[in-house]
Structures are given as C-alpha cells and as structure tokens.
C-alpha cells in the first residue's frame, strides 16, 4: 500500500494533528527551557532533555491508537478475507502510521533542540530517543492486540489512561528500581553525561518483552505453547531488567566526564570543554588573578596544578585527584565571572566548620578585591534564612577589614578561620 493511502486509511490520521500540535506545544512550553538553560549543549542532553516528559504521552497515544487500528482491521474484515500476506506483514503495515505518529512526538522536540543549539550528534547521544521509538512501537503492538479482542470504545480509553498513569507514576514511587524499568527516562543525561547501555536495556526489556509475548498471540503456534512462551518471556525480560537496576537510586546509570577538554596556562592549568574554547583565555586570566589574590591573603597556600570544569561530571562526584580543583567555571562565566564559583571551592577552612556566615563574609571580602559584589537578593535566593540585617552586618565587617593594611587583613582571615574551626569542635 502506498504511504499516503496507508495514512489516509489509518486510525492515526485524525490523531496526527493533535500529536504534532502536542509535540510542538510541549517543546515550547517545557522542553525548550532545558535546552536553552545550559551554558554548553551536549548531544546526549539535547536528545534527552526535550523529550523527558514525552514518554508517557507518546506511549499512551501509541497504545490507544494501536487498539483503534486493531479494531478497524477487524471491522473491515481483513482477517476474514484470509489475506495472502502473513499476519506480521499486515500488522506491521497497519501499525506503520500509528508508530510514525508516536515517533513524531519524539522527533519533533529533538530536531527542534538541535536546530536551536546546533551540535554534532555523538554515538552515545541517541539512546534515549531510540528508547522512546522502540517502546512506542511496543505499545502500539500491545494496543493493536487488545483492540482485536476488545471494542475500541472500551480498549482505547482504558489503554490511554492506564498506560499514561502507570508509566507516569513510576518516576515518583518507591522502590526506586521501578522508574528504571518503565521506559520513562525522566532524569536523562545533562552536560558531560550520557546514558549507559545498561540503563537503556533495563528500560526497554519489560515493555518489549510484554509486546513480544503479546505478538506471539498472532503466531500459529498452539495456544498452550504461546501462553507458556509468552509468560516466560515476560518473566525473563522483567527479571533481567530488575537484576540490572535493583540497586540503583533515583539516578539511572550514566557515563560521565567523557568530554574533550582544552587547557591553557600553568599552575594552575585551566581546562574547559573544547566547545567553550573561545572563553578559555578570559577564564584563565580571571582564574590566575584570583589565585594571586587568594595566595596574597593566605587563603590558598598551594595553588592547584589544574582547575577543571566541574560540570563535565554531571550529577556525579568528580574523581579526587591531588592538585586538581573542579569548579563550575562555565556557569560562573555565563553569569558574569568565574570568581564566584572559584571562591566557593577555594574558601575552605580545613576543618568541619559549618559557620556559613563566616564563609560568606570571607567570600564577600575576597569578592570585593576581585571585582564582584553580590547583592542581598542573590544570597537570599540560596539561603532563605539570610536576613537583611545579617547582610548589612557582613558588609560593614568587609568594609572595616578591607580598610586595614594587608598584613592585618591576612591576620583577620586566620582569626576568623580559627574561630570557625573552634566553634565546630
């Protein structure tokens, strides 16, 4: 059947404009923010972020429309006229428009994301997209089979609501492993991360196993064989998936840190992702002048060998390497200066001190020297208990200290550090 005719006769046709409108609407209302927010786009993130909450909707649509299509073939007596083609060919042909419609819901946001943030796709980037495409097809097969046996008036709403509901709630329930098995890949890779094959296989297995078991019902195998094989398939695929994810927390497994870097300067050597190479010189200059101030006032005694961009490790802790500091340089640079995040990393009292006001006053004192002044609101945004009076007191302290000669300022820093450490004991 020609492609156009296939669509025109399909149950997917009236749903197609709705699905397309939903995909475009979704991208502009939700997915786009995540694409534009990050300082540097990475291909895995550009694939995963714009479709993060499309999964339950696309699956529900595929299952319900699949059921409708299954019922339509029944009504048109396709099975009764004993087609010369094999059942699998008939089903695949009938489901092509349904699956294509669901695929569009994934493809439209991803293509839009790559258009807005032109980035070269990488081999490890399209997995979350493939997951959506594979499971949309699986749900369409499941829906199609249900639609052959149950009136679509009942099957379509039940499938639409049940699939949407069950897939949606998996990311909000305990135990945690459920979210890694439902095909809803919500916490996808950020910058510096990419999905592991394990995580994708775990997501695909249960639904794909169910779809394959359901597809067996179309075969000419004896009923008992079909039921036993189908049941076994469901059990094995679900158990295999479970054994992969049973110990995971809410984060799926990720590859992180595999971002090519470009570095400049000596002690510290400053490293940024290659994509941000254009900013490297400016960032390096700022970092070097910051360390001059930090060492001059005794805040840093040993300048690190390397200062590396922190975000390439995504949500995970970077490896602890002597002489290496991990700083959110890019985020800082985008927000005006790398000094802020650098001070967060460098102002350490070397003890268990948790006096955040002490840390803050030191950061304000150094920030003034390095040309950055943060407002009360910017601190209050991070600390809801921070008051204007506290801020005014800290500003006064900074003004008093900064007016003193350098040796006195160094002493002041040592004193405040010792006091914070004493208080922590």
């Amino acid at each position, binding site marked *: 059947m020609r492609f156009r005719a296939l669509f025109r006769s399909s149950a997917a046709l*009236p749903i197609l404009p709705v699905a397309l409108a939903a995909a475009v609407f979704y991208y502009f209302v*939700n997915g786009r923010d995540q694409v534009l927010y990050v300082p540097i786009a990475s291909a895995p993130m550009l694939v995963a972020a714009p479709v993060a*909450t499309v999964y339950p909707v696309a699956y529900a649509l595929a299952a319900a429309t699949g059921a409708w299509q299954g019922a339509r073939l029944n009504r048109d007596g396709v099975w009764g006229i004993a087609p010369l083609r094999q059942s699998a060919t008939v089903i695949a042909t009938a489901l092509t428009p349904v699956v294509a419609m669901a695929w569009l819901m994934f493809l439209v946001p991803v293509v839009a994301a790559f258009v807005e943030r032109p980035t070269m796709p990488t081999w490890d980037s399209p997995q979350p997209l493939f997951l959506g495409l594979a499971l949309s097809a699986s749900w369409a097969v499941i829906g199609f089979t249900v639609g052959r046996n149950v009136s679509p008036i009942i099957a379509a*709403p039940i499938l639409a609501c049940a699939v949407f509901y069950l897939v*949606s709630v998996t990311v909000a329930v305990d135990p945690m492993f459920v979210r890694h098995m439902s095909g809803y890949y919500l916490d996808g890779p950020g910058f510096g991360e990419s999905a592991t094959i394990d995580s994708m296989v775990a997501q695909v297995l249960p639904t794909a196993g169910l779809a394959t078991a359901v597809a067996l019902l179309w075969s000419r195998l004896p009923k008992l064989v079909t039921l036993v094989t189908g049941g076994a398939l469901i059990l094995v695929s679900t158990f295999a998936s479970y054994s992969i994810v049973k110990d995971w927390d809410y984060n799926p497994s990720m590859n992180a840190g595999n971002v090519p870097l470009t570095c400049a300067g000596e002690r510290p050597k400053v490293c940024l992702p290659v994509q941000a190479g254009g900013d490297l010189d400016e960032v390096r200059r700022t970092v070097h002048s910051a360390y001059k101030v930090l060492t001059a006032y005794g805040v840093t005694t040993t300048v690190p060998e390397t200062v590396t961009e922190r975000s390439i490790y995504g949500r995970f802790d970077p490896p602890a390497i002597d002489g290496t500091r991990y700083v959110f340089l890019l985020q800082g640079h985008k927000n005006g200066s790398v000094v802020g995040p650098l001070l967060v990393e460098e102002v350490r009292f070397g003890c268990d001190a948790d006096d955040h006001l002490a840390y803050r006053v030191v950061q304000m004192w150094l920030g003034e020297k390095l040309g950055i002044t943060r407002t009360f609101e910017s601190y209050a945004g991070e600390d809801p208990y921070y008051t204007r009076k506290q801020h005014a007191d800290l500003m006064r302290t900074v003004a008093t200290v900064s007016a003193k000669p350098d040796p006195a300022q160094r002493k002041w820093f040592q004193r405040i550090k010792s006091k914070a450490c004493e208080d922590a004991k």
Partner: protein
Amino acid sequence: MILWIRARRVAAVLGTGLVLIAFAAALFTDVSAPLVSWTVSHQTVPVLTFAPLILAATLALCLESRLPEAELTSIRPVPILDTLLITTALAGTLAITGVGYLLTHADEALVLARNTVFLTGLMLAARSFTARGGIVVATGWVLVVILVGHRTPTEFFSWAVTGLPIGAWHATIAAVVAITLGVLLTYLTARKLP
C-alpha cells in the same frame, strides 16, 4: 423493550460500568497520583479524574451496540429510548455519587458527579460528528487537562473544567451545557448512518 435492552447490552455493559464507578468512588476518594504535567512540576492528580470515563465509555459502547440500518427504518421510537438510556445512566451515576457524598461528605464525590456529566455530554456531542470517536474526545480532554490544565501545582486554569473544585460554578454550568448539547445532538443526529 427487553430485546432492545439486550441489544444495547444495558445490563452487561452499563451495569458493569455503574458498578465500577461505585467501586472507584469507594476506593479512590482522596487518592492522588503524581502524574506528568507540561505546565507545572510536582503536581498530583486525583485518581478519580479518570473515573467519569468509565460511564462515558460504557454508555458509548451501549449506544454503538445497534443495528444502524434496521433502527433507522424502524417504527419504534429508538432515539427516545436512547435518550432514556442516557438519562438512566446519568441518574445511576448521580445516585452512586450522591450516596458517596452522604456517607463521606467528600467533595470528590460531587466533583466525580459533575465531571461524569460533563465528559458524558462531551462524548455524546463529539459522537454525533465522529461516531465511535466520541470517547476519544472525552479521553483526550482528561489527558489534556492533566498535561496542560495546571496554572500552579494546585490550581487549574478556568477552562480545565474537570480539574476545578466543586465550588467553581462555571464548571457546573459547563457540565449542564455539555450534557444538554450532547443529548440534543444525539437525538437530532439519530437518523445519521455511521
């Protein structure tokens, strides 16, 4: 009449539908689930949001269980009987939710009644133009309200009728308008072949 009741599968389908609504009302009042929203994050949706579709779907199936050509050339008042069927189904739901409200004093029971009236009306109205597709429109409405109906995690836009609390009078009016339109269109388009 008994033959018509059998043909419409009233006992088997609509009866089951009403029983399921009663079960849903008994089991899921005050139960919410965190579902996807495209306009806000961290929203929860009452599970009973889906329950009106039980009546809408079973009623749609009853109305579709017919012999279009024979009924069109019938001398029995089939459109009037169908209107009676719709009225009975809604009365059954209102009775169930009314009892639920008397027992629990939970607003959810009233919201369920209002939403069932609205979605059944929507299904009937859409069914007049799209035949079996009427239930798709009602289902689509429920999902659209969940996905994009939230103004904040706890508040809905005023168009999202089925998400609004029972105090929202315009939602009740919308439900009355929808069911009136649905019943009227069902009656007026009864002479249309699928």
